[in-house]
């Protein structure tokens, strides 16, 4: 029976045969970074002058910076001159058949119940030319366009809506922000752009489209999301399936802007390749994510489930500028094998009556090292600011680590702060109790960990909450010894 999948593969292979690959080769720039490369990137993308200027400004600033090493993660030096900073998206598709993909990854796909077509996409098999995603995306776009919602790739936005890009780009994460954000500003390849106009409530989770396209997201990705006055949008990036990528360094930037009475809910499931048992080959995920509650009564909510990457370094933050604005951060970070995560948030209270909530759940297994790092800053003008922080760590086994670095700076005496923290070890008692009721040790651990993360999962859109639970269970397999 010739299934659709088989056809896709045949087509994909065929295309490869006819030199598809060579075409792409011609569309890459040589490794290394200098002004010429940046001009070349900008030119290839057909960007207006302001974009090139912005990139160059960032690059020149980047030259003055040094790679930061204050985080609690360790890795060999990165050679920035050996990286290829621009290549056509399909260049990543080096593999031509699922048979070439690491069997362990395929096994995980199977456990997560991911359809075969999607497996191929996620594993970076070259089927993007034939896959139906384009039409799916088009259908969504038409529906969104009726409401005046702009949702497109960053490159398209630069071409079609330069006034919006120019107005908001770098308004939350400036080109000079930090080493990795600065590098991103200079060389970012593409990403997503979304603008929700005044008073519009985006009727769907902006997720399906992204999920399909996620496999093509590049190494230096940039996302800009604007919710105009009274608008609402819920956005989900990433997916539960482990994603393979030839590029080890990922330095993405996400900027969110919420104007008066606007709400943005941004959810992430990150499951990049964590490397093998010795930690070889995993992704370095050095991300800058920040949202600005620019308007009064606005709200930005970050939810993240981080289970992948060899190293995760990210602090999705909120600048609470508008009076009565609300910032939230809900996080589950799991480190196993040799994974390291240094993650948390910054809540900067500027406006009056601003409120923030931080709920962080760190789980360490194997040799994993998990760090929560968070800053709550209450500025002088932030009358009646409130923060609630809850920071829980769970250890599985005795070779992993959990670390907590909460920073609090208060410049206004009316602030109210609450901080709760706990560290627990999955006890033999708990596991035995579950086993005595008939559950296997593995199921027991998965149940206990999912229970531990419940407060975060309930913040995820329904379907992804289910996926996240499954992901956690699969990720924890083999962690009982």
């Amino acid at each position, binding site marked *: 029976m010739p299934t659709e999948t088989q056809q896709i593969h045949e087509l994909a292979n065929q295309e490869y045969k006819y030199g598809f690959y060579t075409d792409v080769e011609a569309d890459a720039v040589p490794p290394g970074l200098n002004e010429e490369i940046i001009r070349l990137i900008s030119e290839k993308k057909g960007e207006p002058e302001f974009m090139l200027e912005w990139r160059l400004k960032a690059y020149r600033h980047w030259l003055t910076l040094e790679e930061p090493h204050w985080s609690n993660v360790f890795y060999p030096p990165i050679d920035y001159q050996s990286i290829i900073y621009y290549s056509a998206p399909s260049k990543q598709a080096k593999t031509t058949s699922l048979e070439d993909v690491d069997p362990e990854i395929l096994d995980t796909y199977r456990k997560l119940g991911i359809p075969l077509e999607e497996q191929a996409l996620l594993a970076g098999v070259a089927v993007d030319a034939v896959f139906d995603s384009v039409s799916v995306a088009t259908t969504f776009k038409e529906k969104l366009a009726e409401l005046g919602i702009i949702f497109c790739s960053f490159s398209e936005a630069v071409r079609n809506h330069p006034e919006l890009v120019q107005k908001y780009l770098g308004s939350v994460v400036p080109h000079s922000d930090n080493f990795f954000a600065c590098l991103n500003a200079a060389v970012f390849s593409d990403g997503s752009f979304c603008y929700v106009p005044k008073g519009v409530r985006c009727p769907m989770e902006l997720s399906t489209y992204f999920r399909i396209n996620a496999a093509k997201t590049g190494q230096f990705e940039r996302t800009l999301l604007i919710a105009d006055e009274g608008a609402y949008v819920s956005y989900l990036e990433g997916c539960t399936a482990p994603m393979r990528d030839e590029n080890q360094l990922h330095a993405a930037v996400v900027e969110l802007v919420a104007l008066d009475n606007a709400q943005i809910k941004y959810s992430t499931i990150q499951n990049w390749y964590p490397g093998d048992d010795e930690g070889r080959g995993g992704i370095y995920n050095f991300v800058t994510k920040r949202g600005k509650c620019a308007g009064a009564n606005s709200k930005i909510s970050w939810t993240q489930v981080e289970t992948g990457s060899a190293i995760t370094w990210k602090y999705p933050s909120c600048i609470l500028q508008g009076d009565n604005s609300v910032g939230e951060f809900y996080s589950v970070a799991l480190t196993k094998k040799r994974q390291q995560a240094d993650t948390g948030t910054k809540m900067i209270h500027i406006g009056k009556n601003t409120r923030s909530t931080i709920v962080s759940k760190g789980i360490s297994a194997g040799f994993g090292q998990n760090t929560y790092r968070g800053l709550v800053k209450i500025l002088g003008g932030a009358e009646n600011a409130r923060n609630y922080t809850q920071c829980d760590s769970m250890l599985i086994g005795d070779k992993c680590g959990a670390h907590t670095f909460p920073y609090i700076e208060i410049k206004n005496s009316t602030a109210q702060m609450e901080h709760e923290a706990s560290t627990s070890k999955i006890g033999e008692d*708990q596991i035995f*109790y579950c086993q005595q*009721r*008939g559950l296997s040790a593995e199921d027991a651990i998965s149940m206990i960990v*999912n229970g531990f993360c419940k407060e975060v999962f309930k913040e995820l859109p329904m379907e992804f909450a289910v996926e996240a639970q499954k992901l956690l269970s699969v990720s924890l397999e083999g962690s009982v010894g």
Partner: protein
Amino acid sequence: MLEIRNLHVSANNKPILKGISLSLKRGEIHSIMGPNGSGKSTLAGVLAGRQSYEVTDGEIIYEGKDLLEMAPEDRAREGIFLAFQYPVEIRGVSNMYFLRAALNAIRKHRGEEEVDAMDFLALVRSKMKILHMDEALINRAVNEGFSGGEKKRNEIFQLAVLEPSLAILDETDSGLDIDALKTVAQGVNALRSPDRAFLVITHYQRLLNYIVPDFVHVLAEGRIVLSGDKSLALELEEKGYSWLEKEPVG
């Protein structure tokens, strides 16, 4: 259904049980009594498969199988249930969810179909009545924030839902006031059946006023020093445990 023969058990290289032999048949209720530190809870732990003990001699045959060779979860799936002296809390996991997962693990082991949410709810409701459980309790996380009495009642409630062949009650009466004790005992009595055996471990005779055993065994210093019927429990209540150490072992 259960044969314990010459069981010797150590913990941290210290001998705790020194040659226990005991035989339980379906439908019977046996009570193990004894002073603190006599090895009562160790016996319960070994039967359920707790890892921290080392069996140095003897054997346990359960339904014709070598129990000591079985993993704790397999013992549970084969019908052994331990009501814990100190029930464990599991954050964020509702009682309902936990119990359904447990029941389905057992059913799967028996080759039966998993129970669906609706049927399970009906089952749970019927069992809640026996224990006079508050519906709110079963939707809360497993034992989280439960009072001592609620935890013990929850153990018996789980017993009722999982319907084991052999139920071991490890000091279920400890920390219960008289009303809670009566409710728990009522629950246990409602679960008495010709197919089910109970091993009731207790320090005090009090519980045995409500759960009347067929046999009473006295455990002292790792040995069963005396066995008898329910009248033995009353005798112990009167005389305490100290006289036993002077009596010749029967």
